[in-house]
């Protein structure tokens, strides 16, 4: 039972264009969502997060949108850069429990081409 789903295993985007990575969740107890970025042979690194009381959070080139009614979130990267090429994981947690006990999706591999 995959509670956090990333249905696109890969995405290719041209440099300078927008990258949109999608994530769906099924557990209505989740109220905090995070995106992690992972390069090969490295651990995941935190990118951006959003609480369920918000529908948008922006940090530089990265924006996360949350649609609670649809149980859907997305990560927008504008403009995309070659250094953004990595695997992106969506993760969720319930703040009422152990907030850092994260449930991850299976990841989307983003390739930004020149």
């Amino acid at each position, binding site marked *: 039972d995959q509670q*956090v789903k*990333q249905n696109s295993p890969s995405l290719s985007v041209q440099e300078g264009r927008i990258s949109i990575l999608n994530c769906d969740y099924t557990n209505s107890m989740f109220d*905090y969502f*995070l995106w*992690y970025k992972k390069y090969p*042979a*490295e*651990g*995941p*690194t*935190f990118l951006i*997060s959003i609480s369920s009381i918000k529908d948008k959070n922006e940090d530089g080139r990265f924006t996360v949108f949350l649609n609670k009614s649809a149980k859907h979130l997305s990560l927008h990267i504008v403009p995309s850069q070659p250094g953004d090429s990595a695997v992106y*994981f969506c*993760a969720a*947690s319930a*703040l009422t429990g*152990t*907030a*850092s*006990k*994260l*449930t*991850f*999706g*299976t*990841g989307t591999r983003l390739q930004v081409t020149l």
Partner: protein
Amino acid sequence: GAGVSQSPRYKVAKRGQDVALRCDPISGHVSLFWYQQALGQGPEFLTYFQNEAQLDKSGLPSDRFFAERPEGSVSTLKIQRTQQEDSAVYLCASSQSDPGLFFGEGSRLTVL
């Protein structure tokens, strides 16, 4: 150190061997987590410590898996009688406060 340090980075074990994976969290971080990442999957929660107390071990797949953090700092994940399905990257993460995890580079275990 500046980040979460894990050792060994790579471990090859014969089926049936015991292995021990070490995690040195960021100094002062109270919370420590272990996650297992199989090939092509996202990390999956194994266990959680707050200081030396193991508060949640619901993700440990079997009683062959054991974790400890006796002094509230370094943690060891031990896998007894390894099996091929234990092959994965084992990620350790620590945090100062919820939420927000800092991950190590992981220990890649291959069981032959």
